[in-house]
């Protein structure tokens, strides 16, 4: 057990546990807060896996923006304080079965497929901003541009969606 392995196991436990809480908690805002914990733990795992830049982007975008947006939406939709009994649909059992099926399929695949393969992190190239930037703007410039168009479309879509009813707001 190296330090990295111990840290990974700890962070993994935190991530999985808080993720479970995200989907099971009866208080909506707690779900968002547990999501923060999950995302933070995953960011930590990214750090362990030599993906420093991705880790901080994860913090910046997810925790700084996405979760704030989620909280914003919860507040705007008048999420009540305190637990709510009817937060889940009455199909928990089938949902558990389906999720279990997914886990079984994916888990068996990865465990069977990569059993005994070691992930050697010593001397791994840390994903610094420089290397990431170089690859994005050289090798992956086309997907990057496509992505920019996608973002523009999303921006326009979001504006249209939020303005659309504004004009009909009189009703």
């Amino acid at each position: 057990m190296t330090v990295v392995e111990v840290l990974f196991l700890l962070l993994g436990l935190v991530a999985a546990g808080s993720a479970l809480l995200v989907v099971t908690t009866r208080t909506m805002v707690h779900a968002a807060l547990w999501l923060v914990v999950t995302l933070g733990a995953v960011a930590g795992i990214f750090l362990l896996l030599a993906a420093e830049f991705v880790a901080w982007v994860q913090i910046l975008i997810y925790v700084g923006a996405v979760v704030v947006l989620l909280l914003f939406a919860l507040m705007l939709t008048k999420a009540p304080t305190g637990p709510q009994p009817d937060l889940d649909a009455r199909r928990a059992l089938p949902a558990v079965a389906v999720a279990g099926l997914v886990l079984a399929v994916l888990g068996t695949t990865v465990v069977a497929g990569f059993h005994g393969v070691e992930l050697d992190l010593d001397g791994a190239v840390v994903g610094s901003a420089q290397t990431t930037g170089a690859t994005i703007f050289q090798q992956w410039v086309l997907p990057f541009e496509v992505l920019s168009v996608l973002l523009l479309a999303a921006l326009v879509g979001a504006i249209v969606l939020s303005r659309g009813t504004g004009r009909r707001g009189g009703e």
Partner: protein
Amino acid sequence: MAELVEVLLRVAVVLLAFLVVPLLVGQVEHKAMAHMQSRVGPMYAGGFHGWAQLVADGVKFVQKEDVVPAAADRTVFKMAPAVALLPYLVAMVAIPIGPGLVGQDLDIGLFFVVAVMGVGVVGTLMGGWSSANKFSLLGGIRVAAQLMAYELPFVLAAASVAMAAGTLSLTGIVEAWNPWWLLWQAPAALVFFVAGLAELQRPPFDIPVADAELVFGPYTEYGGLRFALFILAEYAGIVVLSALTAVLFLGGWHGPWEDQVGWLWTLAKTGLVAFVVVWVRVAYPRLREDQLQRLAWQGLVPLVLFQLAVTAIGVVVMSS
């Protein structure tokens, strides 16, 4: 072993700075604002100019009863001040004071600082929601909307200076700094400073805590030590913002005799910016919510996009 000691030492120094410097800023705010507004305030604690008033306030906060509203979400309510405060502590670790004088010199320090500062707002949101108070909730919504609006120009302004320096390392940026950047990056500096003020919900961007409308916004239900922690977080935020502005745009430790007293230059510039923060609070009236949004989307974002273009042109011209 020596490494460990050094790390511990650095952390201890940062922690100490974290505990002391925001208090200094708070003291400056109290006194400078009082004098600017010609309302002298308490002048007795400690004797000269009432210098120990802050300490007395601290003692008073500690003595107060720890009240949690009955309808509140207790856990979240209690955790909120810590979540609001901690990111600034973490951010301070990466800010260099002088050459080598830094808690931890990170390769992507700028990114780290910006990312961590964004987390702080979650604490405010937690407080606003968990208080089970409609003023708090409205304040929280305003905080979220404000953060959404100002995060973009904030990050883009930082990106501009990073682009100019060609690195994300804060130390590297200071080293690449050149006095003429004061002109070249002036719009970015302005945007960074203004957007930072807005993220800290400092006046004139303090509509979320507008006491005339929302009592005290997300902090309405807080009292005693927890309220003190929020106040501390605000001052810590001012310190981090000021230090970042100084490091990114004002050249950090650059100045006469920088080899000997560089750290002093950084602190002086930080102090200057912090004083401006206080000064702005006194000088400008609060912006309305719609003015706030308009300033962000119609003022700062176009301006910083223009700055990015100028920076890119400058970088290309200079590198060729």
